[in-house]
């Protein structure tokens, strides 16, 4: 009888595993020009950061001035579509951000005339975002007779900032083909190896979990800190670590900092899916950290959960 139950359980879990394998959140991809390519081609803007003038790459200027860039982005997006991965289009994303900003600037309250509230933090976050950013750049090597293109394409996981795939190299020298043709050749000759690396990274996510970072902070008006022993049989910091151990794939995470008022965890491997109301759903860093927030609330610790970028979550303990 027990054997029969075990077999049934195994079958059910296998069924769930197979279902969950097709339910994970599909990462969004976007191709953008690499920072150094923008600087080298003077596609950058200067801004005053509290008295310090800083240069930042401007995707808008790059797209307006460089027709080859649009060509290469379109070609890569097309190849991703062929592999069932629809990448976000950089130009459309920038247009969307601009029109949303214009709309909000025009919007005011019907009665009081008040404008839409936007904190400086919110304004800063309004940049083109994707789970995986594909950064591309190229240089043309021209010796007067022949031209050759050195091409570089990198996939950066926005969750961790880690490079998960790359393709680079110099194409065959050519004396007659125009630059767009050389660029097209460069993309098509590199893309298969690049996408194979990307697929390896995805397979690793399913096997070992998706990496993210977690930060714990304490409001200064809170009566306790992470060394307090009022919430269980150990210090709060150790209780949080224990929760992390139980809720990460294979208990994989690294405690980078552990002080009385702050803790930082990196390489936190979270599962790709979770089950809710009988349905297997895709899991992201925020949804996963919500469980930690609930766990702390269960101990009577009021907290505020925020996300930094796409793969970093911060919990502020003491109040909302």
């Amino acid at each position, binding site marked *: 009888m027990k054997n029969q139950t075990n077999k049934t359980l195994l079958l059910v879990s296998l069924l769930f595993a197979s279902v969950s*394998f*097709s339910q*994970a*959140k*599909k*990462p969004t991809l976007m191709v953008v020009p690499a920072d150094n390519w923008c600087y080298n081609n003077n596609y950058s803007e200067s801004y005053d950061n509290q008295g310090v003038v800083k240069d930042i790459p401007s995707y808008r200027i790059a797209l307006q001035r460089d027709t080859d860039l649009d060509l290469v982005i379109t*070609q890569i997006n097309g*190849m991703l579509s*062929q*592999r*069932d*991965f629809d990448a976000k289009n950089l130009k459309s994303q920038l247009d969307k951000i601009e029109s949303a900003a214009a709309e909000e600037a025009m919007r005011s309250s019907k009665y009081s005339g008040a404008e839409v509230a936007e904190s400086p933090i919110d304004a800063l976050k309004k940049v083109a975002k994707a789970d995986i950013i594909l950064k591309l750049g190229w240089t043309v090597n021209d010796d007067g007779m022949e031209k*050759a293109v050195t091409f570089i394409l990198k996939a950066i996981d926005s969750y961790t900032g880690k490079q998960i795939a790359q*393709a680079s*190299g*110099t*194409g*065959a*020298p050519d004396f007659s083909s125009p630059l767009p043709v050389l660029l097209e*050749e460069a*993309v*098509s*000759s*590199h*893309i*298969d*190896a690049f*996408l*194979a690396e*990307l*697929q390896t990274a*995805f*397979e690793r996510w*399913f096997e070992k979990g998706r990496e993210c970072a977690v930060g714990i902070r304490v409001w200064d008006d809170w009566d306790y800190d992470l060394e307090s022993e009022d919430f269980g049989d150990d210090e709060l910091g150790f209780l949080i670590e224990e929760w992390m151990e139980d809720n990460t794939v294979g208990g994989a995470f690294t405690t980078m900092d552990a002080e009385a008022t702050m803790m930082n965890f990196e390489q936190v491997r979270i599962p*790709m899916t979770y089950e809710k109301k009988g349905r297997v759903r*895709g899991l992201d860093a925020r949804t996963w950290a919500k469980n930690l927030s609930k766990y702390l609330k269960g101990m009577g610790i009021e907290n505020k959960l925020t996300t930094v970028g796409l793969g970093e979550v911060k919990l502020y303990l003491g109040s909302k």
Partner: protein
Amino acid sequence: MKNLLIFIGIIIISIGSADAQSKRKRKKADKETAKWNYSIECQGEASAGTYTLKVFSIVMDERLAGVQAQKNAVHAIIFQGINAQGRICKPKPALARSINLETEREDFFKEFFASVKKNDPNNFAKYVNLVDEVTDRQKLGKKKFRIGSLVTVNVGLLRKKLEKENIIKSLSSGF
């Protein structure tokens, strides 16, 4: 009347013999295939997802060189990947994600590489095109030849086919 019957008899016998001969030829080709005795040189990419390859096949029967070259090219793309060739060709990873794929899905590949008619939808020949049957010829022994052939392989289509048959995983699988 008698002459007509003899004539019909001769035709039936010759058709039967041709059929048997063609079966023998296919059997021989499949036997050669099982050895996978070849080397590949990448010649470039005609367009995105279509590789141009030079295949050097070691065969016992020269007449089988063309079909064997096509099989070898598809085999290399699925299981071995293609090495870089100077600046002409960047390295191409194998479509197979597991080193044991060939043995794990033996039945599928046996049928896939079988020497049947080209219009069979489950056949390798749909994805490969023979450009030049013999570009190089070298006699290695009494009945052993090294034949160079030029082929193009539509890797994009081949990948789609293998993904559809659940032989390999697609980039978006799991999402």
